[in-house]
């Protein structure tokens, strides 16, 4: 008994039994999982790609990169999985048949390897990167011009998003950390008249179909302004100003999350994005004006 266990390749016999058992276990898990986890809404619960609702053109483009990569990597995954399984099935320990002796260093093997490298590099890598860069340029770099966009300042703190509009005169008031108070989260300098009409709010209210530029700063640690429905996020780093822009094309209320660990209340740092019509926006702005 012990002798047989020491025999090289003895594992193969055990393997057949356990591989079958593992397949059975997988099937069992699939069935049990399908029923146990599905709950009341089975169709929803087993969805694999339940992205948050898209509310901008740019978000669609970001998703398109995901799908492009999914198709390419999916093909590669299937190829390798099939190759691996096929080899394991066909080349199990075969009595009397030796393995084919090759070092794979022949010109042919080298040619195949190099072709593969070039194919991966040019066919996959460079194509995907090119597509991705084109989208990234649009989403992250090509900011709308200053006059067509609405400017909003974001001041992140543990664990709140503070938002500020320039108000009627279109100029933001001066701020200074020494004025930070419970009722003056932005630290507005009261002597600066430009700040008298600044609008401060807790939720991000923007008109639909209008570009918005966010200028973001942090009071304490690094946060990350994350809008799942717009597929964008940008770290908000103390000591520097980061910028983000978007143009929402659908009215509604959406959530703003923090995506960079910022301490105890990281998971509670919830903001609200309200995309409204231009009229509603104007009314809201008028109602908030001091």
């Amino acid at each position, binding site marked *: 008994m012990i002798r047989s*266990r*020491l025999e*090289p390749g*003895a*594992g193969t016999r055990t*393997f057949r039994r*356990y591989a079958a058992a593992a397949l059975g*276990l*997988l099937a069992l898990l699939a069935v049990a999982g399908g029923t146990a986890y599905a*709950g*009341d809404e089975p169709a*929803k619960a*087993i969805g694999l790609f*339940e992205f948050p609702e898209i509310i901008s053109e740019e978000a669609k483009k*970001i998703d398109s*990169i*995901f799908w492009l*990569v999914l198709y*390419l*990597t999916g093909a*590669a*995954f299937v190829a*390798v999985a099939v*190759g*691996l399984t096929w*080899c*394991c099935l066909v*080349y199990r*320990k075969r009595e009397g*048949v030796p*393995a*084919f*002796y*090759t*070092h*794979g*260093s022949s010109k042919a093997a080298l040619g*195949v390897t190099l072709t593969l490298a070039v194919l*991966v590099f040019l066919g996959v*890598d460079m194509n*995907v990167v090119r597509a991705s*860069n084109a989208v*990234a340029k649009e989403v992250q770099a090509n900011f709308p011009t200053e006059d067509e966009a609405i400017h909003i300042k974001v001041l992140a*703190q543990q664990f709140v998003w503070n938002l500020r509009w320039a108000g009627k005169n279109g100029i933001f008031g001066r701020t200074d950390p020494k004025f930070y108070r419970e009722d003056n989260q932005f630290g507005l300098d009261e002597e600066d008249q430009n700040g008298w009409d600044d609008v401060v709010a807790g939720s991000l209210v923007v008109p639909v179909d209008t570009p918005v530029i966010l200028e973001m700063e942090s*009071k*304490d*640690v690094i946060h*990350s302004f*994350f809008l*799942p429905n717009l597929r964008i996020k*940008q770290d908000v780093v103390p*000591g*520097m100003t980061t910028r983000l822009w978007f143009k929402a094309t659908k009215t509604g209320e959406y*959530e703003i999350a*923090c*995506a960079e*660990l910022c301490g*105890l209340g990281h998971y*509670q740092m*919830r903001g609200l994005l309200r995309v409204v019509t231009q009229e509603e926006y104007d009314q809201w702005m008028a109602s908030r004006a001091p």
Partner: protein
Amino acid sequence: MSDSAHAAEAHTETAHAVHRHPAPTGFIAKYVFSVDHKVIGKQYWFLALFASFMGMALSLWFRWHLAYPEQGLLTPEGYLAILTMHGTIMVFMVLTTAPQGGFGNYALPIQIGAEDMAFPRLNMLSFWLTLLSLIILLAAFFVGYDAKNWVPGPGSGWTGYAPLSVVEKAQAGKSGAWPQTMWVLSIAVFCLASLIASINFIVTTLDLRCKGMTLMRMPLTVWAWFVTAIISLLAFGVLLAGGLLLLLDRHLGTSFFVPGNLFIDNRVVTEHTGGSPLLWQHLFWFFGHPEVYIAILPGMGLASHLLANFARKPIFGYAAMVYAIFAIALLGFFVWGHHMFQSGMHPMTAVVFSVLTMIIGVPSAIKTFNWLGTLWNSKIRFDSPMLYALGFVSLFVTGGLGGIFLGQNAADVYFHDTYFVVGHFHMIMGVAAIFGIFAGSVYWFPKMFGRMMNERMSQIHFFATFIGVYLIFVPMHFVGLDGHPRRYAGFEFAFLKTPEMIAWHKVMTHGAIMTAVAQLVLLVNIFYSLFNGPKAPANPWEATSLEWGIPSPPPHDNFAGVIPVVNHGPYEYSVPGAPRDFIMQTDAPDILRHSSSQTAHIPVPTNTSASEKFPTLPPESSSDAGGSSGAAGGGSAPSDSGSTHA
């Protein structure tokens, strides 16, 4: 096994004796403060074993909390502390120690025919520093208390981003005080240990190879450890610098990472001014990305080694494998920016990092292709080391392909810091590397402890773990696709409270429990086999490399004072005309000529002409293939060496 006895005989007659240091006597000198690389390798291995179960227990704790948050198993600050400790323990104490410090220390000197590492005392120092680092890290569990409550660790995540990791009051309770300091100190000490170890590995590989062990005859495991050591040397220095700067920022009032005018705990922070939080991120990820390869390269080397061993076939494209390891290591130093696409760098900087990241796909594809090429037309033995190696290939491919999504600067705008990232890096750096560790453990266990592990338990462990980890980490990708940010201690958002999210969190937790139970099987297997396993022969896997030509376990100075001479490449399996289906590296150079095709275990293809009857062994030995009796150098071995098997 008679084969290995012959092999051992072969080198006893061929080389000269060198005793570098005598065998120690007494328990302490032998097993505790040992300078023997084999003992140090085992010490590293046990340290990693302890740390991995520690890290796994922590992960179960918060995994359960995430599936059943209403039970209140963890407070938010407790969650962050446990999360940080899990990440730090796993990355440093398991993924960095076991593959390199453990197996590298144990097997590298033997595989290249050395009696020990180049600097045995430095080797011992690096282990004890690593242990010190672990103790300091574990201390972080206990020092985070004040009058009201206790926080079991720092709350800054394993990445320790400043200013959260610098300004004490930015964290809840006491987690920003002593626990955070312990965390930085532990990492600094660990860096020191790794730097010392890396120099040792590099010098050993370059200087202590035995006669005939040319660079291109080294097993791919040795190549992987060697390159990993080079990466460690270049990467850990940077993290050490970063860690020291962080300590200075925390305790001596410098401001490398903290800008001025912060407003924390209801007051303006006046102690700091003018630093940059991005500087820490650059330093950290300049280490952090190569660290991924420090964890995974030894696994790649071992997977190659085992695939050839158990497929009974030479590794496909040996040279390409070596160059691919170097390419991956080199490129690994130029892609750290892909961890920082959203950090506030100029968005177009991302283009460079994105392109470089994608280029890593090329050597990775070559490696995968060559692994499949090795399996093609082979004769696979499904012993447990092979299963883990195949599992490694599977997980490496799955995890690697996930990285292609994240490497796209456009897609990463959405995926950055979501569970997609967590799923990805656990797949490749976590589980794939850990399957490499499993493979190494089962493969070298007979050599390390002189006893075989229980094959049944190993196989049960393999299948349960393989299914379990896919159950944990594939759903993690799906949750990430839905936008779930990582490091969330609770579910306050509407988009996180969908039935789908809740269901996936439960699947992941149940997968984790299943995986954890499977690890108990491994633990039982290890400790049962340590004492009760069947005695291991010298070469239980019928492998070719040098460690299998000496007894299990090996004598104190590995080769009983007789340095072997290497005559063959590392992967001579199923050579036509050979007396058995493997030629050990120490076998006689003319082993093929002394066995006729009648007695040969491996038949010679019939269509070859008489002059080509015996195939040409790889480059180094091909020079004497057509020659007379000339055996290479001083390596003339008994002519009937190893022909008994057939």
